[in-house]
């Protein structure tokens, strides 16, 4: 890991110093234990903050929108490439100004699982050793089997980094993801098989928690509209009809989350950021995966389910 971090810093230093990019977008340690945060460097001397390790959870690609038109290098993991491509297509970004730095990732470490296992003890990440993580718990170094602490997203790791441009950079680091046979739709199937009444109760319960902070939308690379249809274009008293009222009641919350699921359906890169950022732990990926599962049966969904059809589509009832 150390070598990787160094290579990353050297790269960032070189790119910034030689003016190949104006901004290098990566990760640095946060202020809380096990927390890594996005980090931005515009000057070579800032690169010392950069790190890369299995705690680098955030998907940085959406930040590219903030720097549209500028030459930016961004650290990505393979699992984030689908969301990058979608963003590129949706917003017609200039690809040649974007330098992807593909970080070698052998699976992310889920801090929640770690905290649950060793609650109350100081935790520190030490290393990624192929099949294991090394973590300091209290005073003691522990070797942990990866598959037990893997971040949910990693169970469906694409492990591919195709369609890169020649200018993109692949960082090297020897690590490996344990091979895992996981049904990506297990959660969806489970819920599908419950009676409708139980499904309703489930969603009532989790949606009731929603505070409409829109973090799921703000972080989502597939939510790339200039103006969201839920953001009213006029001050409150001037409006008479909206897509949705501002009330924090269940009907609105259903409407918001179902609409968002429809809007990202077929376009979602399944980076899972919506679920990560949700402060009240709404299982948003269930909705996304449900639609992904349904869409799989549809022939040809380019460029999204709202703008495509096939004569062989199933009939609604």
């Amino acid at each position: 890991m150390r070598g990787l971090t160094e290579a990353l810093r050297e790269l960032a230093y070189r790119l910034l110093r030689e003016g190949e990019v104006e901004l290098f977008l990566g990760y640095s340690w946060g202020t809380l234990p096990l927390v890594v945060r996005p980090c931005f460097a515009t000057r070579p001397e800032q690169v010392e903050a950069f790190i890369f390790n299995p705690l680098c959870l955030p998907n940085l690609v959406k930040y590219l929108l903030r720097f549209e038109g500028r030459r930016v290098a961004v650290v990505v993991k393979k699992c984030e490439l689908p969301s990058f491509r979608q963003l590129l297509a949706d917003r017609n970004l200039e690809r040649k100004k974007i330098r992807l730095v593909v970080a070698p990732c052998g699976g992310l470490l889920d801090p929640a699982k770690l905290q649950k296992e060793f609650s109350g003890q100081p935790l520190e990440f030490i290393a990624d050793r192929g099949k294991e993580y090394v973590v300091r718990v209290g005073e003691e170094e522990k070797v942990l089997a990866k598959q037990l602490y893997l971040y949910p997203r990693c169970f469906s790791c694409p492990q591919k980094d195709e369609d890169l441009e020649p200018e993109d950079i692949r960082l090297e680091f020897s690590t490996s993801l344990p091979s895992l046979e996981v049904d990506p739709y297990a959660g969806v199937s489970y819920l599908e098989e419950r009676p409708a009444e139980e499904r309703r109760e489930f969603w009532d319960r989790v949606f009731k928690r929603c505070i409409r902070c829109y973090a799921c939308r703000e972080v989502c690379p597939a939510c790339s509209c200039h103006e969201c249809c839920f953001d009213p274009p006029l001050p409150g008293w001037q409006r008479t009809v909206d897509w949705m009222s501002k009330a924090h009641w269940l009907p609105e919350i259903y409407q918001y989350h179902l609409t968002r699921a429809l809007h990202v359906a077929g376009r979602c890169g399944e980076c899972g950021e919506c679920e990560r950022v949700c402060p009240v732990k709404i299982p948003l990926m269930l909705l996304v995966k449900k639609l992904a599962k349904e869409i799989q049966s549809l022939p040809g969904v380019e460029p999204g389910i709202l703008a495509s059809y096939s004569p062989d589509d199933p009939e609604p009832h």
Partner: protein
Amino acid sequence: MSVKEWEPKIVAFLCHWCSYAAADLAGVSRFSYPPNVRIIRVPCSSRVNPQFVLRAFAEGADGVLVAGCHLGDCHYVKGNYYARRRLWVLQRLLEFVGMEPARFQVHWISGAEGAKFAETIKEMVDKVRILGPNRLFQEVKDICVG
């Protein structure tokens, strides 16, 4: 509102060229059907944004019907094909969150099918009446949100 007074409220989005004409024909032919349905005219079933359907439910509709031309007969060539896919996906989603399938229906009704229109409404009203008010989108306002 007590259960006795409750009458199903059904919003129907009908395409101008076929299904709205079918509703007209049902009228001309005096095919009666329950007065629980309220019609909104749209040029094509492809004009029906799934968000309109969600909005109708959130505003208190107990059922939503979308009807358009038969596949292949769309006045705008392939609009109903788009509608079919969009609304099929919406149905899957609504069922997933626990809505009864009968509350949101999609039918292809041509301008010559006045009887089919009346029949469709009758059946839908009957089914929704049995289901009762739409609870999914009309949960009581709870003090403990968040």
